[in-house]
């Protein structure tokens, strides 16, 4: 059973054992508008929480996606390079960005669940 968590930077994190799959939320893609380019990190790269992990470009602007957790990038979603608009179509599913092997799972403490994230978005609308 996987467990989906959310950050205040509008990322979702699906955890399976010590591997976290990370993407941007549906709310985030809606705010960005049409996504035209996604730059992903190299597999094998070590990232620390808060490092720039990816860049997502809409028609108007570039936005950084920061690593919400520390660990090693073990897989990236290469489909997004050819089809960046997938981010608009299925942000919280097929358009995941990276998979990170976590240094330790205690970092997950304090992240929001779906209900808390929904409340966070509404409070900041």
């Amino acid at each position, binding site marked *: 059973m996987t467990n989906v968590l959310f950050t205040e*930077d*509008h*990322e979702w994190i699906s955890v399976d054992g010590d591997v976290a799959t990370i993407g*941007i939320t549906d709310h*985030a893609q809606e*705010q*960005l*508008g*049409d996504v*035209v*380019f996604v*730059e992903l990190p190299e597999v094998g790269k070590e990232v620390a929480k808060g490092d720039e992990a990816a*860049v*997502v*470009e*809409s*028609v*108007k*602007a*570039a*936005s*950084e*996606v920061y690593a919400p957790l520390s660990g090693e990038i073990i897989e990236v979603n290469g489909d997004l*390079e050819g089809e*960046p608009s997938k981010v608009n179509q299925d942000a919280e599913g097929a358009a995941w960005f990276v998979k990170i092997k976590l240094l330790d799972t205690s970092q997950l403490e304090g992240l929001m669940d779906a209900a808390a994230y929904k409340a966070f978005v509404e409070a*900041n609308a």
Partner: protein
Amino acid sequence: MSQTSPDNTALKRTPLYDLHVGLGGRMVPFAGYEMPVQYSGIIAEHNHTRNAAGLFDVSHMGQAWLKGADHEATSRALEALVPADIIGLKPGQQRYSQLLNSDGGIMDDLMISRSAIGDSEGWLYVIVNASRKQIDFAHIREHLPVGIVLVEKPDWALIALQGPKSEAVLEKLIPGTANMSFMSGNAFKCTTAGEPYDVYVSRSGYSGEDGYEISVANRNAAALWSALMAEPDVEAVGLGARDSLRLEAGLCLYGHDIDETTSPIEAQLAWSIGKRRREEGGFPGAERIQRELAEGPVRKRVGVLLDGRAPVREGSEIVAKDGTPLGTVTSGGFGPTVQRPVAMGYVSAAAAAPGTELNFIVRGKPLAGRVEKMPFITPGYKR
């Protein structure tokens, strides 16, 4: 992904604000106004404008009449501030020009029309950028001779209809507009919901397509907008697509591609300076502009196409293949019609020839691209 909540206090609204909100427009602060950046999505709105007709609220722009005793007197007053041939305008004819500072730098770009309204001898109609209107109007007033007055029209809205279906759509609502030539304007009567009112229509725009800009009194703006939106070929288009459309069309955005440091010659706008004005001078910064016309400018505005999929944005450094700095990107983004990243910027004159290979520094890494002739699209202007 960080977000900021803009401070919306003191932002102005156009007479169409409620209609934008009703259409699902995402309102953002722009030049002191709350304006729609997009409705359905920038790419869809962009493509709709290229393929059918897009409707834009550009009421934030500054509209004014410059009024004097006769055409020559009013034109001479304006020619002291801009390098275009204004005296030579025929009734109804419209021209693009720039307000220049004493160094020949661009204070703003603007559209100037000679009135075609009966009994309006000596009237010129000007449209300036929203972000510059206070500065522009104060500057114009300061330099007007006795007998010429500037009358601002904050009680007028401005609606742009752009795209290949614009002609057929507008002819139904405002008969006679289909026969207008490109860069001309005239007064018309428009009737919507049984009520007739005055409009001033010019055949011009900022998208690279055929189209119109329609001045209408604030009290009639919503009725005209709604009548146009009721046409099946028309969809509302926000500022996001307005920017991607004008970028593909190679048109300058003030404060980005042109500003007080750039001259019209550097900006590749020499086409907008008439032969008589080039020879006679008599406009601010004429010495620099005549020298740049004769010897060529040190730097030039160019269009660029990127080889890859990553867009290059305003502020990115432009370097030669050997790393020599050449200039800076002034506008950049994704071109939905050309289906790839497009940009414009300034480079040293020696690197401005189409085909010149360049690198763009994006997030510390060089991206390859080349100078490309603008516009990036085939314009649809009425000829």
